């Protein structure tokens, strides 16, 4: 596919990294330094210029593109770029990154001539809310309109004895779920019935959202439903997260240092409790019993603030912390500081955008362990060699079908179920085998 990427910032670079091998990429950015860096690292065409300029786009040959990804940091540049592309090349699919929820709303109402809009805030909020619904998980992702959930756990001493050191076929695993992979050191095991989960492993599970919660309960016994979440920072990310959690009936307390901003957020979110405080005042943390919160999310303006505030919150008794990562390098710092989960909005956004570049039959992909594994949502062809086989008979080639969506409903296949043409398969695979899997199905 011929793909144009407008913007070579962190989102753009992540996208290029994921797509450069399989597609013909052209990157447009105004900053010479970024362009140089991209062209030094990847085999892609680069153009230094304004992505919202018709002359630049036309000269770069946008008319022949299959897909345009506009992912600069500026919403308006992205939208204009997509609109110009639509005018020049009506058949090009356009994907726009936005940070403004209003554009998302306008797009949903069909008033923006763009094929897809991806909002960093909404994607980040979704990622965090998935983590919170299964607090024991390291990472989770939803597929098939939320019917299938992927969860990644670190197995440690607290995990239930009933599943650790027991062959999978004998373990009381939650119904409607499947262990997709067991990661032990550098090794990745696609488990059969004899495989065993050990403490220190990392396991990846695909199953129904209900099963995902049961898994969470097995991994960290006593981790029930979350009711009390504190969010530090009511900026765009903090607010989007709060909105998402409130929709799920989770109680949210928001802490915002700026008075006017706190007021605006309190106006917008009637169900949230909003505090005007820096969140680093020990008296405040003590008085409001912030330590009682089940989860604290740090969405402050910069990573250093997040770092300090999360450490202080831990001091006050918060046991589970999630931090928004503003710069990729902070991930390690946060992990050292004992932050339980880090979410990089740019990474999340890039993942969401990358799915548009896959096979048109592929609905959604998720990247795991950096980009070591991917999850695909593929509609099976009639001519596929797997169609008509029972799951027991399928050859194992470094990929696993975790669930299928048949007539819009998720089915978690047993070994004697048969794959039919037109089924949507949720496939877990190593990134290097994506093309192979797509071809096979």
């Amino acid at each position, binding site marked *: 596919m011929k793909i144009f990427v407008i913007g070579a910032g962190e989102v753009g670079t992540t996208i290029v990294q994921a797509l450069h091998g399989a597609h013909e990429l052209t990157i447009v950015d105004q900053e010479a330094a970024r362009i140089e860096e991209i062209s030094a690292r990847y085999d892609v065409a680069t153009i230094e210029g304004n992505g919202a300029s018709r002359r630049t786009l036309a000269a770069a040959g946008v008319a022949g593109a299959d897909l345009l990804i506009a992912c600069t940091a500026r919403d308006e540049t992205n939208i204009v770029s997509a609109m110009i592309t639509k005018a020049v090349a009506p058949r090009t699919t356009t994907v726009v990154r936005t940070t403004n929820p209003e554009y998302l709303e306008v797009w949903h109402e069909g008033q923006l001539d763009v094929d897809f809009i991806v909002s960093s805030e909404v994607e980040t909020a979704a990622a965090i809310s998935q983590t919170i619904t299964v607090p024991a998980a390291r990472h989770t992702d939803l597929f098939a309109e939320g019917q299938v959930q992927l969860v990644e756990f670190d197995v440690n001493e607290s995990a239930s004895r009933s599943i650790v050191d027991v062959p999978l076929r004998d373990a009381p695993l939650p119904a409607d779920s499947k262990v997709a992979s067991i990661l032990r050191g550098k090794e990745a095991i696609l488990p059969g019935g004899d495989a065993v989960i050990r403490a220190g492993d990392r396991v990846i599970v695909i199953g129904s959202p209900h099963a995902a919660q049961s898994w969470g309960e097995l991994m960290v016994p006593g981790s029930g439903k979350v009711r009390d979440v504190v969010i530090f920072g009511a900026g765009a990310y903090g607010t989007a997260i709060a909105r998402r959690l409130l929709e799920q009936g989770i109680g949210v307390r928001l802490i915002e240092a700026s008075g006017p901003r706190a007021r605006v957020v309190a106006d917008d979110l*009637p169900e949230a409790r*909003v505090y005007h405080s820096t969140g680093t005042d020990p008296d405040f943390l003590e008085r409001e019993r912030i330590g009682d919160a089940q989860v604290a999310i740090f969405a402050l303006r910069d990573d250093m603030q997040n770092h300090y505030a999360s450490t202080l919150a831990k001091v006050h008794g918060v046991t589970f912390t999630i931090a928004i990562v503003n710069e990729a390098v902070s991930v390690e710092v946060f992990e050292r500081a004992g932050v339980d989960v880090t979410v990089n909005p740019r990474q999340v956004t890039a993942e969401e955008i990358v799915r548009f570049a896959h096979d048109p039959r592929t609905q959604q992909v998720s990247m795991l362990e950096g980009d070591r594994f991917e999850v695909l949502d593929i509609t099976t062809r009639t001519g596929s060699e797997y169609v008509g086989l029972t799951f027991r008979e399928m050859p194992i080639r470094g990929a696993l079908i975790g669930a299928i969506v048949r007539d819009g409903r998720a089915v978690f296949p047993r070994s004697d179920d048969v794959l039919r043409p037109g089924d949507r398969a949720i496939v877990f695979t190593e990134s290097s085998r994506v093309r192979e899997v797509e071809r096979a199905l």
Partner: protein
Amino acid sequence: MSHAARIRQVGRPRLLAVDVRASFNLVARLTKYLSLTTLVPAAVALGYGEPPWPFLATAAIVGGVAVAVERVTGSADSSVGTREGFLVVSLTWLVAALVGALPYLLSSDPQLDRPLDAYFEAMSGFTTTGASVLVDVEQMSTSLRLWRQFTQWLGGIGIIVLALAVLPRLRVGGRQLLEHEMPGPEIDSLSTRIADTARRVWWLYVGLTVALVAVLLAIHAVGADDRMTPFEAIAHALTTVSTGGFGTKGTSLGDFSAASQWTIALFMLLAGMNFALLYRAFVRRQPRVLVRDEELRLYLGILSLASLVLAVLLATENIAGGEAAARHAIFQTISIMTGTGFSTVDFALWPPLAAMTLVALMFVGGSAGSTTGSVKVIRHLLLWRILRRELDQTVHPEVVAPVRLNRQVVDERTLRAVSSFILLYMGIFIVGAGLLAIDAARVGLELSVLEAVAAAATTLGNVGPGFGFAGPVGSFAPFSDFSTVVMTVLMWLGRLEVIPIVVLASRHYWRNF
């Protein structure tokens, strides 16, 4: 030219920052039109074979003076802004009561031949209070009785709304006038143009009045009430829709049939609702707005609760039973709470708990954007929410909790205004009640605490009857002249929601520094 020279050129600072001349001009212009309204009772007088000249003379005198003042004060560049608006509304009501009082004085009615009494009666009319110094209203001529009713109808929707709807010349800059005029902290605008909104409210008002007349005439026609003659029907419709409460009988509505009483209760209930809401629900046919409105829900809730208390009380004390207990309880509750002031029985004779309930209702009032007086339900609702937030913030000082009404955030300025309004209102009430008690002691008038409190509350809340000698079948005549003046001022303050008048007493209103 040097800077100093330029500065000196400005000359001496103006003494007053308010354009008094323009304000007088506008008041005169409004009064000119108001004087024409006396032609209605004049026509009635002719029809009943009574002398029309007191009304014609009023029209001539007031019209002449108004035109003269308008001429004298008129100048091309004068304009009325927000600042002048306060002065204009305050003055207009004083002048209107003057216009209302003239026919009483000119016809030398024996009960209203003293200027203070006539002025009280007229102020009670234009402020839709319904308190009366008349001992026997039935002694009055038909045309004067109709004029009493008519002043309430005019006062109800406000002379200025009328002027806005009728006088296209006032369209520009009319909004600030209407804001004082349509009582309550907010007007839910029906149109982007103020004159349009005013006209719609006006037509709704006329429509409600006509509808009530029609229903009452129908009740008369089917023989359900012999006493509800066409004159009575019109007279009572005029003071029901305006929540005024003047009657044509010494016993208010006591001698009319149950059907008439229920009908009037229903229309008082409607008149106590937000007119913008009524317009949406009935004219635009969006009845759902009624269900969603928090103020309306509380309004109906308070009415139901108070009615229930009174009904139970009437039944257990054997004052009335069955339908009569329900009717008297509901009628009195609606009448007092909306500040109408009609009565179906002499509730001054009811037990203390009933009296307390009714006095408390005097402080409730109807909805914002209605013709009612007093504090109004919306302010009670907001005050409750403000207090709840204060308590919340006592425990959680950092919490940011906007106060909402119908899911909309109410801005802090409005909340401050609500708090200060209620404080000011209660302050004025206490001072008023105190003055009445002191004055009664001075002249040797027997006035109980309840009576003093009720008299101040009823006049400030534009309700009408009080307790004791000033009860629903009684009269305010026994009060001394000084007390009459106090209560006249209270009615004036209450009708204009205190602040536009109190503002005039502040130095910052008149001066720039």
